């Protein structure tokens, strides 16, 4: 087990470096000229050349990469010679728009994204796994057909559609819920947990409708497969109660694939729930990324891209480890 963890961990570190390098290369070598983007609308060739030096683009590519990555280790200065400003650790460059540290911008956006993600994940996992399990237990009966039918509708509902419908119904028409506000980032803000809950309920539901539909399908099919396994017959032959058979023997095996899905979805969501944040105007990571991309704010876009990739890789490793904890057969591999 320890050597399994070690190998996974080493592989993760290596992969993170590879990803950072690839992302950095894409942004530096891509068609968009960072220097042109940095100096804004009214740009003379001379100012572009200055911007080049200010961005360190006169240096060799690898040097640029190492300078960029060194920000993860210590603070350093950025900007043109003579006009350097300090970029605090951890430094991922400064915004072209506001000259703020990129990490400060991300740090501000992250609580919003965490709020959107956490509630949505809990909601869709409970609803998806619960309903999927129920459908599997009632296979072929009315409840199963209802749940499976609902899931088919759910997966085909894109977030903009659900999101706008929810806003129209609960905010504009029924006036039951407030429109989401920037004032509330976490449950510890002035509005308290209740205010936080109401503020984020609609984004959660919008995400959960889509995701729980997928979770229902995966849970249902895996549970049905598990019910047919020989060890379930053994459990019955031991004289165990139905509840014990289904939950202790069945669910542990049947839900394992859901763990994979969940891990990857969490990883993906922490990189920003782009559509949801846009529709509900939540200034989270996804919202910031879209805004930065539109305004050509390369350092911010690049940092968020890298962060999203990091989250997905870390989630992958967490999934692998979770798998090894759940399934002893994986540990030897």
């Amino acid at each position, binding site marked *: 087990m320890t050597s399994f963890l070690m190998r996974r961990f080493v592989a993760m570190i290596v992969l993170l470096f590879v990803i950072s390098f690839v992302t950095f290369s894409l942004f530096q070598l891509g068609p968009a000229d960072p220097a042109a983007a940095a100096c804004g609308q009214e740009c003379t060739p001379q100012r572009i050349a200055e911007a080049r030096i200010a961005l360190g683009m006169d240096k060799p590519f690898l040097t640029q990469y190492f300078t960029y990555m060194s920000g993860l280790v210590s603070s350093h200065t950025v900007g043109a010679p003579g006009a350097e400003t300090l970029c605090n650790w951890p430094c991922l460059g400064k915004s072209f728009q506001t000259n703020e540290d990129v990490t400060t911008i991300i740090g501000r956006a992250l609580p919003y994204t965490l709020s959107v993600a956490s509630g949505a994940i809990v909601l869709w996992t409970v609803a998806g796994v619960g309903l999927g399990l129920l459908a599997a237990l009632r296979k072929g009966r009315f409840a199963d057909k209802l749940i499976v039918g609902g899931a088919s509708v759910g997966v085909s509902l894109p977030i903009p559609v659900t999101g706008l419908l929810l806003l129209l119904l609960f905010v504009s028409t029924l006036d039951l819920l407030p429109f989401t506000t920037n004032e509330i980032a976490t449950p510890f803000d002035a509005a308290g947990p209740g205010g936080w809950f109401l503020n984020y309920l609609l984004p959660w539901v919008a995400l959960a409708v889509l995701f729980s539909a997928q979770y229902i399908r995966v849970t249902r099919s895996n549970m049905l497969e598990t019910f047919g*396994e*020989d*060890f379930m*017959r*053994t*459990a*019955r*032959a*031991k*004289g*165990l*109660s*139905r509840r014990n058979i289904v939950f202790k*023997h069945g669910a*542990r*095996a049947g839900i394992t694939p859901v763990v994979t899905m969940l891990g990857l979805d969490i990883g993906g969501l922490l990189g920003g729930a782009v559509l949801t944040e846009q529709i509900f105007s939540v200034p989270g990571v996804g919202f910031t990324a879209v805004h930065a991309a539109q305004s050509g704010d390369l350092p911010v876009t690049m940092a968020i891209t890298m962060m999203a990739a990091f989250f997905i890789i870390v989630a992958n490793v967490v999934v692998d480890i979770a798998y090894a904890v*759940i*399934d*002893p*057969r994986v540990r030897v591999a």
Partner: protein
Amino acid sequence: MTTPEAAAPMLAIRDLRVSFPTDDGVVHAVNGMDLTLARGETVGIVGESGSGKTVTSQALMGLLKDTAAEVTGQILLDGQDLNTLTETRMRAYRGKKIAMIFQDPLSAMHPFYPVGAQIAEAYRVHNDVSKKAAAQVAVDMLGRVGIPDPKRRCAAYPHEFSGGMRQRAMIAMALVCEPELLIADEPTTALDVTVQAQILDLLNELQDETGTSVILVTHDLGVVAEVCHQVVVMYGGECVEQATVAKLFEDPRHPYTQGLLASMPSLAQRSERLNPIPGFPPSLLALPNGCLFADRCPKTHLVPDDACGTRRPTLTGLDGHPSRCHLETLQPTGEVAR
């Protein structure tokens, strides 16, 4: 059927029938199964694929309750008809009075739990003891089935065991509550021949020790000869012959049993040519009116009036060796026809 044990058999199956609705129609998997078993005896249920032997064992275990299967007839265990019990009441019997082991011990054990925990769980279902006490029972049980260093092996997972060890562990799990009846469904089919021999020896030893009755479901007449006292031969979901092992091999009555024995290559004597039974078993979707074996039987010409093709024979015969064949009614002594 007038053996002395028949007065108070531990297990008596009377006209068991099982059918399943499927997309293609109703599958008649078991069409009249009769069996009596005395305490401490081993009975073999022999048949080829589709003969209904596995379905019979599942019906005994009550595993067909709460499924689409329709089960009729009586399964009397110590006088209690198991077929009338609800799923909830049947639970008290499973593992406690009747236990079961399966063909593939790897898939029959839960892959995520240590072997010892799975045995302890089986014990705790029917015995109100602490987890610690049950764990100790599991260690003892694993030792009794011949697994060396049982304390350490209890913490291992099924995939860390070899095939033979896994089947030993399955046997430990099944016998931990000291059941009256053990159903072994092809327990050695997935094992190598040298390991099969070990497991059969173990079953024999444990039976001598505990006095558990055993139903051994198998396709292998060799295995039957090694461990069983009684045999039931199944064909097309019917019990076609029941006898003691000695009688069955010495004097097989039903033409199917005769054909089966003749078609087996034997180590003891090398024959020049095998004698297969021509044709194939009947479709369980549309059973013929007559004898289920009639279209493969070499002896139908001995029975007048095409009885084999039109009337289903009943299980008849004297001296505790009944056979489901019209020849039995023609020649009550059974000697002349053969």
